[in-house]
């Protein structure tokens, strides 16, 4: 049984343009740099990638100093507390680019260092770009705080577990956690985004 308030956003590789700045940063190149190999890796990745996002809109409370209560979990984090300043509600979201990306990376790992590295960078930039894409849809014009993820600063990574469970991320998105709270598929994101009144 899944919680009944979860919404979904999906997209294909061609729907989401991979952010050039993000990509350049991960490849360690100048912005806008590309070559034939990068483009062929991009083309292959865009064919196999399937973006999915599950999110809920929830009220947030502040039962104490540096504590954010999401109703289903409490987060003690000064940085999140500051991030949520002025917000009475938030979007809690989980996003993934799908297991096919992990498989492609496993294959390239055997075949070519260059293609592995490039595709890994492309996929990281891609999931971030999809997060921007999905947030724009959720926001629908509303003003929001920057996304804030478990693992950033003092927002403990161990909170991934209740976070993902609440979003039925395993059932809806196929996101699972290992014992170190890392997600599979590798290119997945969880985040909170405060909604400013």
């Amino acid at each position, binding site marked *: 049984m899944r*919680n*009944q308030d979860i919404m979904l956003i*999906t997209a294909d590789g061609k729907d989401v343009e991979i952010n050039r700045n993000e990509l350049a940063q991960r490849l360690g190149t100048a912005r806008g740099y590309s070559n034939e190999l990068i483009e062929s890796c991009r083309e292959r990745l865009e064919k196999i990638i399937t973006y999915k996002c599950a999110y809920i809109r929830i009220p947030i409370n502040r039962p104490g100093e540096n504590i954010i209560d999401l109703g289903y979990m409490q987060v003690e984090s000064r940085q999140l507390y500051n991030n949520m300043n002025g917000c009475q509600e938030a979007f809690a979201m989980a996003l993934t680019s*799908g297991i096919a990306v992990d498989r492609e990376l*496993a294959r390239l790992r055997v075949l070519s260092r260059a293609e592995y590295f*490039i595709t890994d960078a492309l996929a990281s930039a891609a999931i971030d770009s999809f997060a921007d894409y999905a947030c724009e849809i959720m926001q629908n014009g509303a003003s929001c705080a920057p996304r804030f993820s478990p693992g950033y600063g003092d927002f403990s990574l161990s909170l991934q577990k209740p976070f993902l469970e609440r979003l039925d991320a395993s059932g809806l998105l*196929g996101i699972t956690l*290992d014992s170190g709270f890392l997600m*599979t598929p590798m290119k997945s994101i969880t985040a909170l985004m405060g909604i400013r009144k």
Partner: protein
Amino acid sequence: MKKITELIKEKRVYFDGGTGTLLQEMGLPAGQSPELWNLTQPDKIISLHNMYFDAGANIVKTNTFGVNRVKFDNYKELITAGIECAKTAAGGRENAYVAYDLGPTGQLLKPLGQLDFEDAVSIFADNIRVAAECGADLILIETMNDSYETKAAVLAAKENCDLPVFVTNVYDATGKLMTGADPAAMIAMLEGLRVDAVGMNCSLGPDAMLGIIDQFRKYSSLPVIVNPNAGLPEMRDGKTVYNVGAEEFSDYMVKLAQGGADILGGCCGTTPEFIRQIVEKTADLPYKLPEKKDYTCVSSYTHAVFVGDDPILIGERINPTGKPKLKEALRSGDLNYILSEAIRQTDAGCHILDVNVGLPEINETEMMKDCIAGIQSVSDLPLQIDSTKPETLEAAMRMYNGKPLVNSVNGTEESMNSVLPLAAKYGGGIIALTINEKGIPDTAKGRAEVAKLIIDRAAQYGIDKKEIIVDPLALTISSNPESARVTLEAVRLIRALGVKTSLGISNISFGLPKRELITSTFYANALQSGLNCAIMNPFSEAMMNVYYAYRALNMLDSGCTDYIGYASAAAGETAAKPAAARTEETLHAAIVKGLKDIAAAKTEDIIKDSAPLEIINEHIIPALNEIGTAFEQKKAYLPQLLMSADAASAAFEVVKKNIPAGENDKSKAIVLATVKGDIHDIGKNIVKVLMESYGFTVYDLGRDVSPERIRDCALEHGCRLVGLSALMTTTVPAMEETIKLLNETDRSIKVIVGGAVLNQEYADMIGADHYGPDAMDSVRYAEAFYSKEK
């Protein structure tokens, strides 16, 4: 009461619908596990079941979906109470059944995830035992979105109870499971595991399921279950509602029933009213269970491969017979080489890959398991598990993700008694060799008789003859001139028995010159005689020519599309090769620019006039140094550096073929590895080839190797010299960790380190015994090490 499997033969039966919406209406807070109510609010759970029975459902799912020992310490109590609730509701009713509801663990299995397959089996097994003890009528494995986890759950059920097993998976908008399997693949695997009904649940609404019900009708011989969601959740007035109402939903269910769904019910968002309307609208529809299908097929975690008129290519390259490089990779545990062979054969157009790792000096079962897990993470082709040892076959069939092809059984009592029960338990296509106690019959008729014997014996195990693919054995014509004609005749006779055939094609030309000519001509003859599968070399142009031409000539290639694609690609390649060699680029420039193909072609060209070491020292290394310097000076980017490394590797592969391996001396051995986290291995590969040419036995563990594996390899082979390579600063700590572990294990093990980021000072700091600035230096150190020993 009749068993549910008997009742479904007589009439359409119905599952219940969703629980979430109703329980939340009854006061279950969002985010709380509904299963806890089995203990705290059992009356509410019972009333929910009663509502569904009253609405016309025959089977209710127990409120145990998320319960397992990982999530709940009191899983036994929760399951027991859950089944008790359902049984209470079912009590006194006619045709009312309790399905023990088993959902996924929420963890992904290895190799992509972290949960071990056998651990998953064990988690599910604990649940199943409780459910069986408590008197559930059937097991429903549901909402599974991964084929591997589904297999673990089914095995657990089969091994721990005799109850009927129903399985429903979640297919998404593309008609596939989250991890990639389509209905045909799931049906192949689940029928092989002998479940009692298959189908789909949850996911999208009933309209989306209409899009894939055809595939169930086409492929399934088992009753088909359809339990959709009430469409998709939508936000309306601040509340979530599913967008398909009972009326619309039940109309779709009528269409689904007409399209091939036998057992109907609902999932998230559906209520007793949905079930009532489904029953009302479908109870009088004509009802007929699926007829038995006659497909011969095997599957992977994504798709099924059907063996029929269209020839099937089974890649033979992962088999050590006659392949020294593979033998060496197996001995040293170098999975990378094996995986790259798997990828190359996949790219070359194979449909199935044979996996044989039988070498007397290795643990075949463990190696087979490692190879299957590894290959299934880089290739989505079904695998042919190839071993003469039943224990190896069993271990591999068990952990294989999908329905494997099993190579092989033969007509001896020993083989039939050991292999056929495995196929009956795990499922699988079976290659049947026409060998009996007396050997291989000389005549085609004799071979067909052995085939008949195996088919009959398999039937006693409940294995249908569609699962059997007979290999009447091609023996070389160089020692047995009649062989080809006998084998071809045997193919015809065996096809007439109504089974499919396979041949290891290459054997036919053993011992003859220009083998490809004989092999490919024989292949054409065999196809004409009705051969279905060929175990063959997909890198042989002559063989691929026959394959594509045969399909074009026999109306198996509509519009000759595949043939034209193949022919133009082949023409392009022939033109490209000399062009690459003719290009003005020097080898040096090709490496610096990261042009892999040109670097290889150029090396082929110059190796005719240059010594191998000269090419390494005068072309490859200086080019790598140039790009390395450019990178350090920020004149080149990391992708360029890596492209150059790939190009240098390609060039080096060519050089390697031309370095004669020295006589392997077991007393002079070295373990080589690129350390954990590091995937750069060109330096290590150069050291390896040099070491081998100087007569060392090299245990090459590849790249990204854990400290433990390096230690284990050194201990296993009693090897006291280890070479470690790292190219990235970030992986030097892994090198240090490895040295520490080796020192702790045996202080007499000496470690040489090398790699771009290292120098003497660094090497001293991390406790290495020697720093090798280049490959030759490492060889000299190793020579000195072993001469001191003497």
